[in-house]
């Protein structure tokens, strides 16, 4: 044991410890995801993680950086894991590789690697795919509980690799609850009518609602292990709650409830795992609250009036873009110094 002189500041956790905590927190939600949506997620995870490690190795070699230190910090695995959770299941293999390629090359290493990227790499990869391949990125599958058939792991792998006819399982696809909600509202249907669709569960979508709960529990673990601070997730949820609640009480017949919004799509995953990325999030306490609130509000705005059914990725990227400005205006006052005159 080394002897240090006071005041005994304990070293903050290393990158790989933080990333390992994130992976541990992702496990319960991931298991729930597989329980509700089947083996496709395992295929996505395997493809995403292996291609992320491959891209990372190649770029580190090109940039002449030490391999072991960067490959063993788990950051590429976390990026790939989050990415795999965002894209639809049973996607063709090249979709995963293109997305991860953009995430690792354009999203991370072109800016200088871990610690220097202004945008969340997983979200960069996801958004590139979303605007480039709208058909593949909107083909979602029914939860197993209401699906007429399910794929085994081997079937899922051969499906993604294009070894079997891709139209064979077309009947298993369906709109996501958010998608269904958006298109039904545009047909002037009432919330009570929309809820008749089998994809809706007790308060949000079948499966989705419970997966979101497990992300929440994983997020609590992250807060308790001090991997993340509470400000960002709380502010994201508050931003979403305030907006959705105020519109909901004005017109409960044609606006979805706050509970539906909170537990649908990627909001919970985004609030605890994506928005809290220590590199791309705001770094001051006040700034984190503003940053989180901005994401929550933007997700509601994009879902309600935007062109896409869900907007977590866009909201996170827009907030990432504002982080330098937010940080500039929320610098805490140094103790003993006068408050700054003006900025």
């Amino acid at each position: 044991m080394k002897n240090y002189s006071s005041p005994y500041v304990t070293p903050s956790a290393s990158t790989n410890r933080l990333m390992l905590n994130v992976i541990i927190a992702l496990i319960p939600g991931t298991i729930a995801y597989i329980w509700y949506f089947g083996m496709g997620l395992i295929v996505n995870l395997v493809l995403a993680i292996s291609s992320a490690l491959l891209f990372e190795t190649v770029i580190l070699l090109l940039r002449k950086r030490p391999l072991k230190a960067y490959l063993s910090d788990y950051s590429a695995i976390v990026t790939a894991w989050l990415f795999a959770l965002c894209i639809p299941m049973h996607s063709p293999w090249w979709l995963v590789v293109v997305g991860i390629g953009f995430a690792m090359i354009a999203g991370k290493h072109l800016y200088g690697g871990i610690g220097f990227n202004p945008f969340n790499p997983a979200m960069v990869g996801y958004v590139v795919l979303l605007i480039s391949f709208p058909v593949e990125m909107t083909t979602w599958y029914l939860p197993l509980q209401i699906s007429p058939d399910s794929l085994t792991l081997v079937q899922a792998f051969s499906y993604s690799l294009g070894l079997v006819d891709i139209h064979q399982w077309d009947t298993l696809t369906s709109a996501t609850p958010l998608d269904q909600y958006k298109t039904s509202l545009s047909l002037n249907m009432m919330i009570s009518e929309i809820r008749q669709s089998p994809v809706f569960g007790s308060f949000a979508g079948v499966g989705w609602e419970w997966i979101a709960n497990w992300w929440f529990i994983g997020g609590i673990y992250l807060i308790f292990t001090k991997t993340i601070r509470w400000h960002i997730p709380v502010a994201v949820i508050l931003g979403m709650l305030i907006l959705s609640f105020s519109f909901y009480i004005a017109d409960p017949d044609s606006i979805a409830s706050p509970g539906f919004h909170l537990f649908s799509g990627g909001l919970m995953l985004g609030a605890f795992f994506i928005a809290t990325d220590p590199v791309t999030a705001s770094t001051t306490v006040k700034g984190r609250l503003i940053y989180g609130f901005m994401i929550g509000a933007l997700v509601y705005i994009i879902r309600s009036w935007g062109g896409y059914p869900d907007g977590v990725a866009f909201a996170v990227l827009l907030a990432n873009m504002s982080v330098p400005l937010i940080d500039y205006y929320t610098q805490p006052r140094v103790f003993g110094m006068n408050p700054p005159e003006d900025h």
Partner: protein
Amino acid sequence: MSASTAEITRSGLWKNNVALVQLLGLCPLLAVTSTTINGIGLGLATLITLVLSNTIISAIRNVVRTEVRLPVFVLIIASIVTVIELTMQAWFYDLYLVLGIFIPLIVTNCSIIGRAEGFASKNPVAASALDGFMMGLGFLIVLTILGMLREIIGFGTILANANLMFGEGASALQFTLNEEYGGFLMAILPPGAFFGLALLIVAKNLIETRFYQAPAAKITDSEAEPVAT
């Protein structure tokens, strides 16, 4: 101060390339290069404008007073662009429809007023015409390469709709990569234009450092190599 032919050529095509080095005229460059033919169409229109405007401005350079030169230059450029626009409307109507607003917008292309002010107003007619041609050619080449790059990635074709420019017989020029290629839409969208231009600039700088200059200095300690833990 008259520059030599070789110098003007080198400057226009490579050393001082409008798109890759001066980064001028980016608005049309990024907006219309979604296909090769669009790129060539706008590149040619800009090339002709540059040659004509440089020639005329150089010819009148001793007549126009310094105080009013910019409005005069703009008037001349605007007249030339109007002529080109009407010509395209008459003979290449379909291409004219595709390029739309970007044809009249050549007036505001900074590279044209830039060459007028920076070169034509100080040099004799022949040198100015050559400069206009070489600058325009440099711009045309970049537009064409960028158009090809974006078209092959975005649609999987090269020279699609060549009939817009070269008449019906040219439809056969179209090269299709693979019938089943679905297309990578981002290459056609604005971000793809930025990525494509950035890649071309990277390629140019790479060629320059490899063949024209000593290799760049190695990363020094001051640039803080992250320490392995």
